[in-house]
């Protein structure tokens, strides 16, 4: 495959600048010194130059400075050898194999590129040139040459080099401001100094890495994914990719990061409030569907902890975007009193295969085959709920309820606040020991075991929180005796399964202000 030849201006071995097209017919040959076939054809090109150099420009474009000198010395070349060590002309012309040879007219237009060495093709090329120039044949003994020799991959196609060239090309998808860092500077320290970091080291977002990251999505690099609070800054796919690189993501994670950003930048999720609250809230991302397996996410042993790259870096990428694009920084709009380690990252997949229930995304209206990210605004977690003794389903369900009762403050009940309960496989097993145990029954049980009389919520000498004394004084005894559960509605109890098959330790995340005045959990389909 080759793109059309385009104009260039390069210097030859004598320092002379040579521009193409030349106004004369020309033979442009791309060579690489360490390619055997290039060395085979170099003397042929010199013979072409001797024969037709008066009427046409016969030029070699070499792909390395040192190599060009060696080629010249080895073959006694007198034809111009131009320096394309930057490989920009090789990249622009778009061939794949060297030697690559083009026979072109005075305007730089011409026939197809000849790649490698097939003797009959080269002979035909020589005949074409002599015919076009109405000149005699060149001095090449074709019979002494092999029938065929394969070429080598052009140097501009080395993955690292090609990505750099693509990033620098005029039609590059890269539009972000480039920051040049002197080689004497420490790159990592520079990024800390610029305030790009969450406090942990970053992967430098070089144009090559960002290009590779962009290959993870079909979306255009300049498409706006979301307007990011608190600065209401538009985040392009490119900006998402830059921050995903810094977070340590692989390109295949990018669609998840994009969907997560879309989810949290909705009015329902209210990322501004989640950022600003002194309570310290942050998105907790739950991943469902086939992408969990595709990305090798960890949904079992240690699912809520470190060590899995996808779990760790997807959540971190989202946080870095909120921070770097949205401008959410502690001391700025982020006013968290204590904050939470979830502001570094918090993302995990549900172990759907280990769950007796519909996965979270199916419960929320998606197809099981969809890949979905669900974002919850949470202030605490994971808080362990420990029960190694219960053997009856209702006992375990009761324990999970009592574990949730501590949310915010144990004495406060009837809370219109979300909780995300992560049930471990051993607790699931006990729940199912007498037969099916639905999520609805589990929610009912949680509400049942956390019922307390309103009088327990009245402010007292132990804690001034709860129902003010003045309000309690206006309540009847019957009202004070009314039993109220922990949650104002069982819809606030979200349930997923994850974790190792060994260990009776479930966990819960505690929400923030749930509802239109605060945050509502949001799910987005991941477009893979």
């Amino acid at each position, binding site marked *: 495959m080759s793109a059309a030849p385009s104009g260039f201006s390069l210097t030859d071995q004598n320092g002379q600048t040579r521009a193409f097209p030349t106004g004369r017919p020309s033979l442009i040959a791309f060579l690489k010194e360490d390619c055997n076939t290039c060395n085979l054809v170099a003397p042929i090109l010199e013979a072409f130059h001797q024969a037709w150099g008066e009427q046409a420009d016969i030029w070699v474009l070499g792909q390395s400075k040192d190599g060009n000198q060696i080629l010249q010395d080895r073959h006694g070349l007198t034809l111009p050898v131009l320096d394309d060590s930057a490989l920009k002309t090789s990249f622009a012309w778009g061939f794949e194999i060297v030697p690559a040879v083009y026979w072109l007219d005075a305007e730089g237009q011409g026939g197809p590129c000849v790649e490698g060495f097939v003797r009959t093709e080269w002979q035909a090329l020589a005949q074409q040139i002599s015919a076009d120039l109405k000149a005699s044949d060149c001095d090449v003994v074709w019979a002494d040459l092999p029938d065929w020799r394969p070429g080598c991959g052009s140097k501009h196609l080395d993955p690292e080099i090609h990505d750099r060239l693509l990033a620098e090309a005029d039609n590059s998808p*890269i539009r*972000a*401001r*480039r*920051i*040049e*860092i*002197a*080689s004497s500077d420490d*790159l990592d320290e520079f*990024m800390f100094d610029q305030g*790009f970091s969450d406090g942990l080291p970053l992967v*430098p*977002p*070089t*144009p090559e890495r*960002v290009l590779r990251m962009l290959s993870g999505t079909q979306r255009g690099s300049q498409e706006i994914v979301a307007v*990011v*609070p*608190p*600065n209401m*800054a*538009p*985040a392009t796919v*490119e*900006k998402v990719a*830059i*921050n995903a690189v*810094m977070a340590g993501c692989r390109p295949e994670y990018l669609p998840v990061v994009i969907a997560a950003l879309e989810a949290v930048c909705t*009015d329902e999720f*209210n990322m*501004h*409030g989640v950022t*600003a*609250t002194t309570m310290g809230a942050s998105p907790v991302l739950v991943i469902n569907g086939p992408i969990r397996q595709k990305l090798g996410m960890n949904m079992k042993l240690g699912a809520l902890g470190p060590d899995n790259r996808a779990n760790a870096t997807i959540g971190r990428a989202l946080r*870095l975007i909120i921070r*770097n*694009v*949205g*401008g959410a920084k502690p001391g700025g709009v982020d006013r968290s009193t204590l904050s939470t380690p979830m502001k570094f990252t918090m993302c995990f997949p549900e172990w759907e295969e280990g769950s007796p229930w519909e996965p979270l995304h199916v419960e929320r209206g998606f197809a099981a085959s969809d890949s979905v990210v669900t974002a919850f605004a949470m202030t605490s977690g994971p808080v362990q709920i420990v029960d190694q003794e219960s053997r009856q389903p209702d006992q375990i369900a009761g324990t999970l309820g009592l574990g949730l009762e501590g949310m915010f403050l144990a004495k406060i009940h009837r809370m219109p606040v979300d909780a995300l309960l992560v049930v471990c496989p051993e607790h699931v097993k006990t729940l199912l020991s007498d037969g099916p145990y639905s999520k609805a029954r589990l929610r009912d049980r949680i509400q049942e075991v956390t019922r307390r009389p309103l009088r327990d919520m009245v402010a007292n000498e132990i804690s001034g929180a709860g129902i003010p004394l003045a309000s309690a004084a206006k309540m009847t005894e019957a009202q004070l005796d009314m039993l109220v559960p922990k949650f104002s509605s069982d819809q606030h109890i979200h349930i997923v399964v994850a974790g190792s098959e060994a260990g009776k330790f479930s966990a819960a995340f505690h929400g923030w*202000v749930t509802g*239109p*005045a*605060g945050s509502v959990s949001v799910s987005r389909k991941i477009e893979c």
Partner: protein
Amino acid sequence: MTTILDPTDERVPVERQITARTGDISGIVGLLDIHKPRGNILLDELELLLATRYPKVELRRYTKPTFAKPCPSDLRLQIRSECDYLVEALAD
């Protein structure tokens, strides 16, 4: 030399200047309750003080639907079109 790409929104920060102080208050003063607990109490007191000290000033009360979200743009525009000054009360 290494090149990296800017991960931020690339906005050039604009230094904001405080509006010049006139030393007097006239016209319409808006009092915005952001809907935090006891914000109304703070503004009640302030309204009383302003009304006593500047009887010719008209005072108008506004309330955000929730303190947890930015001010809705309709309300922001309404305040801007109706008021010469605005006092926004935090509370708790």
